[in-house]
């Protein structure tokens, strides 16, 4: 369905995406595009959705170059980042126009519009203008425009940004359902947990480079090879005594009223820490992961990559 062969993208002197090679097979499923801000996720999505041509290499979607290619564009839907929509228009009329621009007309257009609005839960509010819609409602309309023509490939750029938890879960359910119906969903995010909840396959991007690809388990194993820092607040000596007995410990540093552990496989050590604290074996008052954020993880991977 998708293949990149050393495809790169430059914005003048700035390299948005280094030469990247990967393939996604035909058929449904969700692929997560993971990386911190500025990693090149949007650049990659713009290449795939035909907005920009590659500066080098080759991009193929459904076997063809997507840039300004109606044969490819008729089969994909894009939900760009943000909640921007044309000002001063009603959602239902705008959706009708987008449907017509996708080649729909007559009864097929009406049915597609009703189905898309029903899917995103906006059937009863589509008569509103965009100015009167909340951010979540606008996001749903943006998703509806991408679903109108029944795309085989659905591309979403940071779709969870700004959504409340309920809307986020609702969108995740919807994406899973679409994937189950045979749509290939490509979704980008800079939040690992979001992607992990959603997807069976991850592409890791950092500073315009594809660092790794694989299943969530494979990526987690890759991340587990790198030590993560945890600050345990409490009686430092008692905490340190407990910590040195743990096989995952890589380094230990004493601080005023706390101890900082550098551990491998935090998912193995954390349950034991929890049990020890609950049983009163260690005087733990607080636990702070210092570098579990994605940027830190990518820093590790970058070193590894180098």
């Amino acid at each position, binding site marked *: 369905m998708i293949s990149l062969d050393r495809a790169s993208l430059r914005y003048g002197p700035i390299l948005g995406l280094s030469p990247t090679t990967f393939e996604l097979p035909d058929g449904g499923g969700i692929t997560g595009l993971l990386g911190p801000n500025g990693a090149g996720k949007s650049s990659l999505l713009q290449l795939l959705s035909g*907005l*920009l*041509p590659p500066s080098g290499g080759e991009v193929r979607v459904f076997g063809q170059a997507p840039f*300004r290619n109606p*044969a490819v564009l008729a089969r994909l839907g894009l939900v760009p980042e943000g909640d921007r929509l044309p*000002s001063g*228009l009603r959602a239902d009329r705008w959706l009708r126009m987008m449907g017509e*621009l996708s080649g729909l007309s007559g009864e097929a257009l009406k049915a597609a519009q009703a189905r898309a609005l029903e899917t995103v839960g906006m059937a009863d509010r589509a008569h509103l203008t965009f100015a009167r819609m909340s951010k979540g409602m606008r996001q749903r309309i943006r998703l509806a425009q991408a679903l109108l023509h029944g795309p085989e490939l659905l591309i979403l750029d940071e779709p969870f940004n700004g959504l409340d938890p309920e809307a986020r879960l609702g969108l995740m359910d919807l994406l899973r359902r679409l994937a189950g119906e045979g749509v290939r969903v490509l979704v980008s995010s800079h939040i690992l947990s979001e992607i992990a909840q959603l997807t069976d396959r991850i592409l890791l991007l950092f500073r315009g480079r594809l660092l790794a690809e694989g299943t969530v388990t494979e990526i987690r194993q890759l991340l587990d090879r790198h030590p993560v820092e945890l600050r345990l607040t409490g009686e430092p000596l008692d905490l340190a005594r407990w910590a040195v007995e743990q096989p995952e410990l890589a380094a230990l540093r004493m601080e005023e009223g706390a101890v900082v552990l550098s551990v491998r496989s935090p998912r193995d050590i954390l349950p034991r820490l929890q049990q020890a604290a609950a049983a009163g074996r260690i005087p733990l008052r607080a636990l702070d992961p210092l570098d579990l954020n994605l940027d830190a993880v990518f820093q590790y991977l970058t070193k590894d990559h180098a």
Partner: protein
Amino acid sequence: MSQAAPSPLATLRATAFGYAPRLLQGRGWAVAALVAVPVGISLGVFTFSRLQGLDSDPAEALRIFHDGLVKMMLPIMALVAAPAGIREDLEQRTLPLLLVRPAAVWAYPLGKGLPWFLWGAAWLVLGALGLQVVGGDPSLLLGRIGALVGAWWGELALMTLVGLLFKRGTLWGALYFFLWEPLLRIFPPFLQRLTFTHYIESLAGSRAAEVKTHELLAQEQVTTHPAVAILVLVAFGALCWALAGWKLHRTPIGLAGSEAEG
């Protein structure tokens, strides 16, 4: 359920109807007011004069047409309306939503511009009719309507193209309309064929016999045949729409509204 790409005509129709509601918002009424206000004031003064039993100035209609509508209002209309066309999507970063459709990208500028053209043209026709009441020469009515609508077509298309070529398209457009066109007055006559004013005067009647020498556009009488003049205005507008479409089709425009090096 993937669909076949819509035809260019379907693209034009969908875009024109889709964005037509924008006409009935602030910017649309501003465009209408640019014609309605000067003509309306003139009509009001004319009516008041008549009620007072005073004679109206027979040159009033000519003055409002040339100095009001042609020199000032038409360019301002183009400067106000063109940014609401495809340029608006570029600036609001909603253009990617259109560009990922399988429709003919080159048709978008014209599709978004057509409602504005028709809206402005309708008000210009009303304005020309209003000036007839004030005292316009009935034999020149069709020429004046042709001149206003033809120039509006060309100027709107030009501004749409300039808006796609330059970041500060409105500024360049203003410089063209309010600096370059008046400056051409002092240039050799053949260069004056590069102004809208030349063709407007050809269609609406040259003012040479009716205004003072320093107000004349050309050092010589405008001799371009009206049929040629309307053809030039229509063709120039069509060329600008085509170039705007070509520019949009060729230019890679990403999510940030910026171009990448393709």
